[in-house]
């Protein structure tokens, strides 16, 4: 069975055209792979490029060099050079993403926000809502909020909606961008539990966790991003 995610020799820099075209190298020669059922955590100080790597793997940032090979169905696809349409299909079926912040959509209830990724994959709305309810109650979001649009929720509440949305699908690869940042201890435990279940289900997880306890609890392996510092290569 192919490895779900293989990143090899990826480099990324930003060219700031508005500032006389200066080039800001971010990372270079990024290489790692994640096996099914494994949770790898990107480590290193802030500014090292953890977030950029996660965003490249999601197709949100462009890749300058290298390959990001994703097992998409029974195909191996290089996400770094894939067409936008292919990236969208990979996001729908293969790579899930739990971001730090929820981009709220006005007037859509929390339940439907959570259930949407399932509906997008052809699941019935009722079933999506059922699964969404399960997750939201596990994450201790008061039931009276479920039918409301999350725009007015507190940061912690929004994040739990976001986590539920990220965990509802059975994507074989899941990216976690500090999903526990503004959660209390009780809900952090729930997320740790959810991650454990994903691992058991054979999902390959790649995450950023600033919270040492959570990192400790979920990480099978730490990938030190400072190894990929762009300066090292240039030096």
């Amino acid at each position, binding site marked *: 069975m192919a490895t779900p995610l293989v990143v090899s020799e990826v480099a990324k820099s930003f*060219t700031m*055209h*508005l500032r006389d075209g200066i080039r800001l190298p971010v990372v270079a020669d990024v290489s790692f792979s994640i096996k099914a059922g494994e949770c790898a955590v990107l480590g290193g100080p802030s500014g090292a490029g953890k977030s950029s790597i996660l965003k490249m793997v999601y197709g*949100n*940032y*462009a890749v300058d060099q290298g390959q990001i090979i994703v097992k998409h169905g029974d195909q191996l696809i290089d996400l770094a050079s894939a067409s936008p349409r292919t*990236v969208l299909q990979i996001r729908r079926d293969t790579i899930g993403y739990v971001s730090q912040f929820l981009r709220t*959509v*006005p*007037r859509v209830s929390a339940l439907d926000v959570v259930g949407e990724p399932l509906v997008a994959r052809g699941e019935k709305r009722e079933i999506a809502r059922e699964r969404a309810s399960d997750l939201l109650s596990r994450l201790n979001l008061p039931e009276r909020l479920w039918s409301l649009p999350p725009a007015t929720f507190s940061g912690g509440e929004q994040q739990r909606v976001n986590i539920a949305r990220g965990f509802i699908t059975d994507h074989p690869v899941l990216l976690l961008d500090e999903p526990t940042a503004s959660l209390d201890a009780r809900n952090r435990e729930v997320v740790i539990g959810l991650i454990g279940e994903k691992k058991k289900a054979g999902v390959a997880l790649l995450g950023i966790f600033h919270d040492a306890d959570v990192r400790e609890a979920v990480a099978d392996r730490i990938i030190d991003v400072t190894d990929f510092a762009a300066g090292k290569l240039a030096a």
Partner: protein
Amino acid sequence: MMTDEPLLRVSALSKFYGSRIGCEDVSFELWPGEVLAVVGESGSGKTTLLNCLSTRLLPTSGTASYRMRDETWRDLYRMSEAERRFLMRTDWGFVHQNPADGLRMTVSAGANVGERLMAVGDRHYGNIRASAVDWLGRVEIGEDRIDDEPRAFSGGMRQRLQIARNLVTSPRLVFMDEPTGGLDVSVQARLLDLLRGLVTDLGLAAIVVTHDLAVARLLSQRMMVMKDGRVVETGLTDRVLDDPRAPYTQLLVSSILQV
């Protein structure tokens, strides 16, 4: 929703006004259910491009082919005017920035929605009216307003009516020219939300011309940035907005006021 064949194929499309460039060398493919945002400032050629694609304007060179409902591919600029007009009122929609350009202001909301049905030969008043009620509901206009003229509607309602009028024949492709352009911010949000829902539920493909990056972010999966008639950057909407590469896109993105 995703099929293996695109709906529209555009190749090296150019439109010149004399020696002045309207748009130049634009190529892309659009798949069913996909929303493409074309962004750029006034004069960037985005509206010229939209008018060429919707055959309201003939390009100077280049081709655009469309996969018809019967799966045949047709070159849009070689179709007869009768066929093009038929396409425009059945399988296509066009949402104008100013609703008055897309509505008949002197006939009732119901007739505005029903016109396309009557144009394709529906001759049952009861059925036409029932469809009108249904579509007004989907764009959140009450049934009690069905006999009112759009003149009596607010800007936001007019725009929603224009959308219903376009969608009643279940088009597969909708062109939108600054659909939220002249509206108040709160009204814009509601309309965007409605459009987003409709596009997803109906699996519509859409080409949305806008100068508003928030509109592009909310509605589209893919984006094309235009400047001086040429495409300067293209890609996934969130990629273009979060990691803009072309100098002009960086300028556009950095010019957004943060609230």
